């Protein structure tokens, strides 16, 4: 006679797990949405930083060369970001629209 009891407990457990999953996904989506703009802002700041420090490679005014050289070994990610930006450099408006989720 124990079988139905196990079944109910199992069901409750499944429902609970499913709710936890739904909650986690919803939480993740909400958190993603909450930081979306900050992330875009962060990427923009990182880009500005990279251009400022390594601008010497593309003929921009830059800090004394030894500062650029001292930071260069730590800036692989920033350089990759700079190169990625070359692809979208001619479409600044579409970038802006996608950041703010317009259209």
């Amino acid at each position: 006679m124990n079988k139905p009891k196990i079944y109910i407990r199992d069901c409750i457990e499944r429902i609970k797990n499913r709710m936890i999953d739904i909650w986690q996904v919803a939480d993740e989506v909400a958190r993603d949405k909450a930081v979306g703009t900050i992330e875009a802002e962060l990427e923009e700041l990182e880009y500005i930083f990279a251009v400022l420090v390594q601008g010497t490679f593309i003929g921009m005014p830059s800090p004394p060369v030894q500062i650029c050289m001292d930071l260069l070994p730590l800036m692989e990610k920033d350089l990759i970001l700079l190169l990625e930006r070359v692809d979208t450099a001619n479409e600044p408006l579409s970038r802006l629209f996608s950041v703010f989720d317009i259209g």
Partner: protein
Amino acid sequence: MAELRTLFFLGKGGTGKSTASALLSLVLMEKGKKVLLASFDDAHNQSDIFEADLSDKACTLGPCLEVLQIDRDKEIKRYLKKTARNVKNSYAYLTAFNLDNYFDILKFSPGMEEYALVTAFMNLQTKYKTYDYLIIDMPPTALSLRFFNLPALSLIWIDQLEKLRLEIYKRKEIISKIKFAGKEFERDKVLSRIREIKSDYQTLKAVFEDSRKTNLFVVFNQDVLSVAETRRILDQLNSLDIGINGLICNDRMQEGAKKRKTENNFSSLPVQHIPFSSSSLIGMSALKHHIASYNLTFGEILNNPS
């Protein structure tokens, strides 16, 4: 143990910085002080004055006197090689691919010369910290001023970069707190490095400004151009909060010749005269003879706080 005192000799090209620094080195050596004379000037005048083939390895020329000639190109190459090695170690292979070509060009970048001299200066300060005096024969005015300006100028940039990096750091912190409950937040290596560089430049700037550790002397001749340039050096260094301890007037005229009024322009600073010598001041014996003949002590400028 006495603290290392650094004496810089600046001035217009050809005024006698090398001769003055060589004479002072010998005066201090005679007093039993441990002295390193380092020439930062590519003209290699110290090699000619001491009739020795000087290099960046210290050459012993007296009981407690060593002399060396800084090789600027070698310093730049060493620095760029180290940076290239660090880049190759920390970058993925493809990102660092063909990087050597960049570094071959970078040695010609503006600012590398003064940075090479600053690096050489910091290395000498560490290596010879047990010595009494580090005497530096500087290159002509333009490069010397860029050398002294380097810490202050770098700090302006570093401050701005630190502010920007802090903004980046703050946003990363917020994202990490919201998205990952603060679990995946790593330290910002770039910010840490910026702070290390800042600390190095602050230390160097403090060394330049500390008259107990660092003294500057400007060598000039009694001619209008030399005096005018000396005035500009004083003004420029004054704007960097770096004081001059004294002037050295290298007399190019026979004793008794009419002295111009130019000297009076610097009445607030003590002036050490190096009297005219009818024969070339080349070789140890000629230098020692000149010191003994005129009883040169450099006492007044050495004991003057800036």
